[in-house]
C-alpha cells in the first residue's frame, strides 16, 4: 500500500526532500514507519520527532492505504 510522507524543518534537510510516496507492507504501524525512515536517513534526535497522521498528531496507529504521515521536529528559532 502507498503512503505519502511529508518532512519538515531539519528533517527535510536530512532527508533532502519535503515529500515522498512509499510502498509499504500492509499492517505497518506509524511508529514502525518512523523507525524505518529514521534509520534510512539518519534523522537526529528521533525521540523529539512527532508524527501527524492525516494531520492529526498521533502515532499509535496502524497505517492505511493513502495515509499522509508528517514528520514534525520541534524547533525554537525566533
Amino acid at each position, binding site marked *: 500500500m502507498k503512503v505519502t510522507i511529508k518532512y519538515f524543518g531539519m528533517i527535510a534537510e536530512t532527508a533532502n526532500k519535503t515529500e515522498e510516496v512509499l510502498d509499504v507492507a500492509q499492517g505497518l504501524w506509524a511508529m514502525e514507519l518512523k523507525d524505518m525512515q529514521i534509520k534510512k536517513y539518519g534523522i537526529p534526535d528521533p525521540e523529539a520527532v512527532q508524527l501527524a497522521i492525516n494531520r492529526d*498528531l498521533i502515532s499509535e496507529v496502524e497505517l492505511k492505504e493513502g495515509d499522509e504521515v508528517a514528520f514534525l521536529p520541534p524547533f525554537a528559532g525566533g
Partner: protein
Amino acid sequence: MRYDRQIKLDVVGISGQEKLRNSSVLIVGVGGLGCPAAQYLAGSGIGKIGLMDHDKVSITNLHRQVLYDEFNIGKPKALVAKEKLQRLNSEIELVAIEEALTIENAEMFFDQYDLILDGTDNFETKFLINDACILTGKPWIYASVYKNEGQISVFNYQDGPSYRCLFPKTARQEVSCEATGVLGVTPGILGMLQAAEVLKIILGAGNVLSGKLKLINILTGIEQIMNIQPRQEEIEKIKKQGIIPVRIDCEVRDTHKIYLDVREAFEQPKVNSENVIHIPLGSLQQRLREIPNREEVLVFCQSGKRSRIAVEMLQKDFGFQNLKNVEGGIETIIDG
C-alpha cells in the same frame, strides 16, 4: 479618531475596542517575533503591553527586528522598544522589563497580564513559558522559526493542549536563527500572526489556533494545519510538580582536549562536559587564573568571532601561548 478603521469592523466595534483597552499582553522576547507583534498590538490599542528582554540591540538584529535602528545598537531592547512604541501610541501603558524569564520570576510576571506572547528563541524558555502559563492559568501564543519554516499555535487556552502535549520530549540541541540564517520576513510574518491570535482571543472573534499547529513555509507558500489533542497527564504533571526545568545540554565530541567557552551563561546550547571551562568574554581578565597556561586550550563561542577576540587578547596582553581559536564556532565541536 485613532481606532476608527478597526472599530468599523463588525468583530471590533466600540465594545471590542473597549475590550482591547482593558487587556494586557506580556511579550517575552522582543526580537524577530516580538517586534512585529509589539508594533501591531501597540497600534491596536491593547491597554498594557509588557516588553521583556534581557538582550541589547546588535547590528545583526536589524534585518528582521525593524522596530530598532542603527542609533539603538548596544542599547537594551526592552527600553528602546518601550520608547519607540510609546511614540506610536501614547494612550497605552508600556512596561519595559530588562530581565530574562526565569523559574523564579515567571509566575510573578505572568500574574500581571492576561496573555503571554512567546517571542523567545530557545526550548528552555518555551517550556518555562508553558509550565508557568499552566500554573497561572494564562493562554500563550507560541511561534518558532527554522530557516524558511514557521510553526504557530495557541496553548493553554480554554482546556486546550499545552506545548508539552505537542512536544513531550525536547530536542537535544537547538539551532537559533543566528546559527542557521533567516530571512527577516519569516519571523516577521509569524510575529504578526501571533498578534492576530491575541486580537482574536481578546475580541472573541474567529477560530483561535488552539489545538491546531499551523505550519508555514515561506519559500513554497504552503500552509498546513495539524490537530493537537490535549495530553492530560502532561498538564496534570505540571499542576502537581510545578515548573519542570528543561535544559538543552550537549557535550563536546573530543573529551581529551581542554576547551574554554567564552559565551554568556544563558547562551544555547549549553555544553556540559567536564573538559570545558566556562568564562564569558567580559570576565576573562578577572578570571585569568582559571585558564590553564601549559596544555593546549581550544577557545570557542557561538560563531568563532568572540573567541578570536579572546585568544588575541589573552595572547597579546597576558602572554598565553597555548590557545587556539575554534574558527567554526560551537557547532563544529559538539555532538549533533
